[in-house]
């Protein structure tokens, strides 16, 4: 087990290096960043000064080494907009994003697994077909559009919830449902299909023939084995979830990392862009790692693959 964890731990920094390389290359492919950062009427001296202070006059490999070296210390430079260390700006916004992501994941997992079990147990029934149809339809909706529709219905028409912002629990409801709507269908479909696989296994027949109540057979015997692929997919989807959060946060004016990175991209606040991309990627990698370890803990076969 420890060997497996170590093997997976080694992959995290490698992947991070690839990510920083992608970010670095993208930023440098974009042409002369100094021109993007300075107003059009900046003098040649101002350009030269900024070029020098950002180390853009050095060879690319050296710039990359400097970039990675600074990253290792969590130093992304000073935000051009906030005039504070970019990392501090990003870390300020992280708790809000985590709160929204956790609420969304929780809703998605609970509703996805519960409805997935229901659909699998009643395979072929009206409720199964209804759940499957609604799920595929839900997957087809742009999630931010669902958010906008929720605002129109619950906030504008019925005045039940605030349109956006953060602070009160009621403000968390719509953004987390919007985020969950993105993830829940996948969890549901996967729970359903993997439950169906397991429910036809001989050990379930044995459990039933022992006279165990259906509830115990399903929750204790079947679900435990059916959950592995579900957990693995939640990990894989975490990256897309963070992406979904970027737009959801914008729709609901949720002051998280997603909203910050969109604003930073538009104001060309590159240190903040870099910091938020790397922090988001690290969050995804750590989530994947955690999921892999949980999976290896539940299912010993995973460790030997």
């Amino acid at each position, binding site marked *: 087990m420890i060997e497996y964890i170590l093997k997976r731990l080694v992959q995290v920094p490698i992947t991070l290096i690839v990510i920083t390389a*992608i970010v670095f290359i993208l*930023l440098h492919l*974009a042409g002369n960043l100094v021109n993007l950062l300075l107003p059009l009427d900046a003098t040649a001296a101002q350009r030269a000064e900024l070029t020098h202070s950002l180390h853009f006059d050095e060879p690319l490999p050296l710039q990359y080494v400097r970039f990675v070296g600074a990253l290792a210390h969590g130093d992304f430079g000073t935000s051009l907009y906030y005039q504070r260390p970019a990392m501090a700006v990003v870390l300020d916004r992280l708790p809000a994003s985590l709160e929204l992501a956790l609420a969304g994941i929780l809703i998605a997992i609970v509703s996805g697994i519960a409805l997935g079990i229901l659909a699998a147990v009643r395979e072929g029934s009206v409720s199964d077909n209804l759940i499957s149809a609604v799920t595929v339809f839900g997957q*087809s909706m*742009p999630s*931010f559009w669902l958010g906008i529709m929720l605002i129109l219905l619950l906030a504008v028409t019925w005045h039940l919830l605030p349109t956006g912002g953060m602070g009160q629990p009621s403000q968390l409801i719509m953004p987390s449902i919007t985020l969950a709507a993105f993830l829940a269908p996948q969890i549901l479909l996967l729970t359903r299909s993997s439950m169906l696989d397991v429910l036809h296994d001989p050990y379930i027949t044995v459990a039933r023939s022992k006279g165990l109540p259906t509830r115990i057979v399903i929750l204790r015997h079947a679900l435990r084995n059916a959950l592995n692929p579900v957990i693995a997919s939640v990990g*894989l989807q975490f990256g897309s979830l963070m*992406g979904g959060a970027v737009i959801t946060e914008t729709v609901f004016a949720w002051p998280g990392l997603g909203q910050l990175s969109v604003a930073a991209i*538009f104001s060309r606040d590159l240190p903040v862009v870099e910091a938020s991309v790397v922090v988001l990627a690290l969050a995804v990698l750590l989530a994947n790692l955690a999921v892999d370890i949980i999976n290896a803990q539940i299912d010993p076969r995973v460790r030997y693959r």
Partner: protein
Amino acid sequence: MAALTDAGIVGADRSPTPIGSVRHRRGAAARLRRNPRLYAGALILAIICVGAIGAPLLTHYSPTGQELVNRLRPPAWNDRGSWAHVLGTDTFGRDVFSRLLFGARYSLLVACGAVIGSGIIGVVLGAIAGYAGGWAETIIMRAVDAQQALSAILLALMVAALFGNSLLNLLLVLAVTGWSTYTRILFGVVRSIRGQEYVSAAICLGARPTDIVVHHVLPNIISPVIVISTLQVGRMLLLEAGLSFLGLGVPEPLPAWGTMLSDGYRNIFTASYLTTIPGIAITITVFGVNLLGDGLRRALDPHVRGTA
């Protein structure tokens, strides 16, 4: 009779219905018939394609023609609406129905173009990683990890913001974010094909790697590629809508659905139909694509045949 029977037996011995034979195809046709999702999805998409292609015949309004006198007219079913503009007009007095029909062209072209681009990159890299193994595998699969940790929308945002938004940039951005799905799945498929005995046999007979890839690997990955591509079209439509919403999609005044949606969002409290209508169009199209993809998967993937 005996000769015929013998010939039949010999013939059967020689060809145990290889993939692509008549019998296999007939089986596939029968499965298609038993597969209502496939037909429902194909029908929805056919209607949308007819609307997109026949747009100039279905409406006499130009999608970009402005009629400022008639701006923000609600749809016909509203009290203030009129049948002259069935789905109403936007802030510039442009006919929403016409923009919806012509917008289907841009949205579908962008999505399909991005899928073709990302498909080519993803399939080639997946085949290399799965077939060659070793260093190539390590580098490609770590890049896949990195790509999947760097959420598509953020990467797309960075590229779009740095390089500006044009139709071509949008296509490139979407292609760049979509390849890893192909690579991850095809890597597994190709690696399992490479381990098959008939591939070892071909190698023993002196087949070159290119021969093996062309004759043995490619025919076997066509089904998964078709299924992934179909589902990816839906994903790209949603991503395009998301990017447009953030202001980085198909540039104005071209009428793509995502652009219409984000435009409408600015008037959400006064003219909510400008947001609702393109959203419904996107949802129905992606629904059709997902049904078609799911139907194709059930028809082409032997593992799910029983559950179709």
